């Protein structure tokens, strides 16, 4: 993850710890893409609010592939450049569902706690 700049404003520009896997799965659920494209897609989806550090991205991709949730293959890009493309497997799609659900539950729970006066 990229180091978050010292800021008094609490913009979630850093990927919340533990959610990167979920975000990658989400990004890949739309289409297969290479590593750089994943970072761009996540930044775009978050309207530039999130920055995915490459230091975390590639180990995470490796980890997800090891779990069998994503698969990879080398393909040519539009510019005829060789790149490694990742795609969601069926297990990955299932995992995305359960992970997203548990994330929502977690957020709701934190919200309940925070809204308690």
């Amino acid at each position, binding site marked *: 993850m*990229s180091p978050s700049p010292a800021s008094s404003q609490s913009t979630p520009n850093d990927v919340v710890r533990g959610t990167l896997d979920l975000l990658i799965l989400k990004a890949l659920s739309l289409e297969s893409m290479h590593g750089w494209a994943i970072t761009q897609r996540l930044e775009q989806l978050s309207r530039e609010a999130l920055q995915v550090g*490459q*230091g975390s991205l590639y180990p995470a991709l490796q980890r997800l592939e090891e779990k069998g949730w994503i698969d990879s293959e080398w393909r040519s890009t539009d510019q005829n450049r060789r790149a490694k493309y990742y795609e969601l497997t*069926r297990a990955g799609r299932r995992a995305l569902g359960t992970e997203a659900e548990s994330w929502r539950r977690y957020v709701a729970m934190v919200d309940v706690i925070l809204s308690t006066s």
Partner: protein
Amino acid sequence: MEPTRWIKRWRKRLRALVRTDAVNRELDEELAFHLEMETRKNMSAGMTPDEAKREAKLAFGAVAKHQGDTRDARWLAWFPDLSLDFKLGARMLRKYPIITLVGGLAMAFGIFAGSMTFEMITMLQNPTLPLPDGDRVVKLRLYDVEESRAEPRALRDYLAWRQSLRTVTDLGAYRDLPRNLIVTAGDARPVQVAEITASAFTIAPAPPMLGRTLRETDEQPGAAPVMVIGHEVWRTRFASDPGVIGRSVQVGDQYATVVGVMPEGYAFPISHELWMPLRLQGLDQAPRAGASISIFGRLAPGVTLAEAKAELATLGRRASAEFPNTHQHLQPEIASYTGSFNANNTDVIMAVIIPGFAVLLMILVCGNVALLMFARAATRESELIVRSALGASRGRIIAQLFAEALVLGAVSAAVGLAATDFALRRWGGPFLVENMGQLPFWYDPHLTVGTVVYAIGLTFVAAVIAGVLPALKVTSGMGARLRQAAAGAGGLKFGGIWTVVIIAQVAFTTAFPALVYLEQLMLVRIQTFEAGFPSEQYLATMIEPGDPISLGSDPQAVAAREAEGARFQSALAGLRQRVASEPSIAGVTFIDRLPREGHREFLVELDTVAGAQSRVGTTANGTAKVPLDEIQAAHIDASYFDVVQAPILSGRGFTVADLVPDPRVVVVDQGFVDQVLLGRNAVGLRMRLAYGGEGPGTMSDQTRPWYQIVGVVKELGMGAPTQRGRPAGVYIPTVPGSQGPTNMVMHVRGDPLSIVPQVRAVANAIDPTLRLTKFQRVDQVTDGIQWIMDMWLRLTVALTAVALLLSLAGIYAVMSFAVSRRTREIGIRVALGANARRVVVSIFKRPVTQVGVGVALGGAIAGLFLLWVTSCGEGSCSSAGVVTVSRVVTLVLYSVVILGICLLACVVPTRRALAVEPVEALRAE
């Protein structure tokens, strides 16, 4: 997961493992692509190519670290790097030869001790029967639950089981018959004969080397008597005669024809050398009567031991109902052939204490090696920090140090296992024979696969202790040190756990030689325990009657026993006469146990004038002392004192007239007079003997006979050399053979062993069934125990030497480390004018305290141990006369010596500390 995906995934995994370079190149390419895309993005935002590239790189961060992290996330990511770690580990062995030597030696010794213990315990506790389906071979017996003992007279039951048992097949039985084999006239030597059913050769099949094995037809009445001989008998007694088949040879008092020779090593059922058919028809088959037999068989296919037990229990209940008089309390039992009938009967010493000691030793050894490794790792702190800065994770550094320890452990394991195999082959067999007598055929001490696996496990544990623990310590807080870039600034310290390790090590080193001292005392005692006569001029042999003693209390059995006894006594009388007439024999006599062989122990009760014996007596010079009440007794022939030329000190010796069936006279030795009578006159006193505990023959039994002391003789090796204290002996006159097997002792002119063949020939002529074993010179009695004690002593000395070496190396490491950590501090102190004494005190205060505490603790343990061992007799402890000035001085001196040796290890680092130049110290940073 779909099969194709699964296959693809595994292909990728294996590729990452096998073609690491190619996969790494792909990762580089992927990351380069990422950078390129980022650069392009920056350029499209208006940056110059150089700016765009720099920005992209900045945003990306340390490429090498990302590569490392990504590689670490792979399956078995550590595996390819491990080979590098192993190479590095091997290099470290060469780079630090002292640590390699000391640590390796220690680990090798730990593995040696561990695997040796494991092998022996596995062999004794859970031996494998080297037979086809060995784990299904079983033994069966009858057990009298009321009398808590086995009932060997089980012939009737064996026959019944053979008829009806379905869960056990190939049921067979044997009688254990030690017999004389007489191949050439006059050469009668005992062999271990098994009268056995032919099924033995189905349970333990082996093609005979010559001829055939026993057949069921051989067991039929009227069949020609035959025998199968073992390889060793064939080699030694028949001079490997290839034409031995068909020869008729005398075994005991009958002749039989040799029909087969078994291959080398064949000794079923236990350690037998000759097999003859078991003819049941000729034996008494009444319930609980007749011959003693042992029963064996094999579990039927698919049957478990529990099922066989259940069926046997049913048969047992049936027998109880059928023969209530004999079988009411008998219970049939079944167990694996090499196992115990009582599954709960685990030997605590064998199962817990010895392995526990071995593991403790290993932990201690590894703890110390860990200390050395930590010191080595600490001196390499800078290197490790650089590695960390270059992207190595903590796990990688720990893996590296683990691999280094594993390399050292592997080399040590190889050395330790080689030593184990050597020791087992060289000493394992003799050691077991010395302790157990004849060795069952399934005991073959050598290194087994199980032990190698155990040693590998032990090596891993050792590598974890010696590698991972120091690695955890070295790498903890490394991030902080990395940020401070303060390698070598004293960030690492030997903490609490290391203090414990050092103290334990020093205490162990201090305490352990107490055991050596004790063993040394024992050995000296064995070597100096005199027989009291020139025992090297005497030949002894153990003589046993040919037939197994008839069991039972019915009149028939009693009469048979009496007849056997009379026959044995008369044979001995004849033997004595004939042997004594040999020109080289100066005298022949008999004793139940040889001098220094250990004699039967009794409690003695004196018939004092006052009628009651006071526990506190008065010695001849008037001091109060508790008289000894434990004595050793020997049954001897009337001629014993004359033949061993022992002078009678007062009173008289024995005469033939004393050999009445119930002798009422005894001769005591000087030890008895000094300790039981406290120097009073013995002759004329009455005494009686008692067993310890309760029941007939014990102190409470008032029907015990009184004996009159008729004489006093010098001390003649009563008791065993391993016994503590001075023995007190009582000699009871006995007709040779009336107490069962006896030792014939011959005073020989010339070499005693040279007359063995003549004695055998004479015995054979008188009664071929007489079994003469254990021919030895009387001074050789303690050879066996001396050999064992000597071996233990060597082992303990080696152990102590290793412990001492390790302690010194550990302490040296600590000292050396303390100095290297504080080089700058020492330099500044010296620059500021601190004197040498102060520097020494400040630097070595902690290690010297540790050594001091260790020595004090070890000294205390050793002292308490010696106190306990030397003061506790059998069942009682007394502190009187144990704490002597000389003992305390010895202990203190010993502790001082150990302290001195430990402090000696500090000399070099101390000198190095003082030689540090202030400028040099500052430059070191």
